[in-house]
């Protein structure tokens, strides 16, 4: 089976960053093989062409994919805390782009949600994730507390990513 892999920091010490996603769902026109990538990079936007093979082992065409240079995605954009069960929740954010992503800052709008994040900035390599513990400390256990977490980064899709926080 052929798929498409990605590596950085060549030539002498290639750092493998895994297989790219978006390819090769069984039954699709490229269900058997996806191969021979060709890339057109322009600023923060990446256009990829590749050849596909269907499951009857025939060349089925050349298709296109679009990617981004820096792409922050959270695992979830809503975290719910039950102070009696899980006062600490883990936020995962990943870099789905081709280049380094800079996390510039994180801050919570409500002091009931505090971050265990010692660094002011953090660089995420392609295909890397960051896990940040968030602690919920309610003032009144019977009251629903809402807040938001703002992540500032240089993601191409927007400099601020908002995570919604709810605790009780």
């Amino acid at each position, binding site marked *: 089976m052929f798929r498409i892999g990605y590596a950085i920091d*060549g*030539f002498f010490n290639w750092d493998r960053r895994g297989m*790219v996603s978006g390819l090769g769902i069984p039954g699709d026109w490229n269900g058997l093989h996806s191969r*021979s990538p060709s890339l057109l990079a322009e*600023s923060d936007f*990446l256009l990829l062409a590749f050849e596909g093979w269907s499951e009857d082992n*025939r060349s089925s065409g050349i298709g*296109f994919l679009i990617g981004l240079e820096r792409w922050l*995605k959270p695992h979830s954009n809503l975290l719910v805390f039950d102070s009696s069960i899980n006062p600490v929740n883990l936020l995962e954010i990943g870099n*789905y782009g081709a280049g380094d992503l800079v996390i510039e800052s994180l801050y919570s709008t409500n002091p009931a949600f505090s971050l265990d994040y010692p660094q002011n900035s953090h660089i995420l390599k392609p295909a890397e994730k960051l896990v940040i513990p968030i602690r919920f400390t309610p003032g009144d256990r019977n009251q629903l507390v809402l807040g938001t977490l703002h992540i500032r980064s240089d993601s191409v899709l927007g400099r601020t990513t908002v995570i919604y926080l709810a605790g009780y």
Partner: protein
Amino acid sequence: MTDLENRMKKLLSFLLLFFLLSASSSTLYGGRPRFELVPYPPEPLITPGFQGDIDSQGVLSPELLWDGHFIRLYYTAVDSNNVERIALAVSTDLLIWEPAGVVLEPREGTFDQDGVSSPELVVIDGAYHLFYTASSSGWNRIAHVSSPDGFQFSDKRTIVLEPSYDTDRFDSIGVSSPSILYQDSVFYLMYRGHDGSPWRRLGLATSHNGFDFDRKNGNAEQGAFFGRGRHGFDDGGADDPEIWLGSDGTVRMLYTSLHF
């Protein structure tokens, strides 16, 4: 902002909509992050038979190029007799492609008489340099031909990289699938080496003129610069390299990964 960037931004508007919609979902990804690419559109735009019989059996090894006006797609066209040629399609919007015919045919009685494939284009000072896999009598070599416009290529074809003919090396009996990075007046050539084994490995050679390449010794298997991985998806090795210089100044590579 360049014209190409504007066009790609328009294409990305659908992506932004997708993200806004998915923001209401509680789970935006599962598992390990990866370099993510979104199909656009979901179906292939160039399919076998796109240019009639010349590509009726296959459309392979795409090579994208922006010439300032059009997006060009050079590719390997496989005809009904399994002869490989290099063909061209052009587009202004990535969605509608116009056939532009064959730009390189195999030439009888020469080192590429059995097929020309895997195009790699480099434009330097307005000249189009085409590096390709030249096949003859079961041997694969990497050759070069130039053009003033990328449509009509010179009659002068030159082998730029031969097999090493060294039984201790990964590229002893063949070289193919060139990818070129031209940086600071140096041509960096990544290529696939053949030694008769099922493994796929990539090598590096450099040149100052695009013709005389100096083969390098890498620290992967048997002189290769990139060999088999340990994580399943590329445990059979790598093929079809695509190298480029990232915005951070580092060399990056996409490649075909082989998993047995």
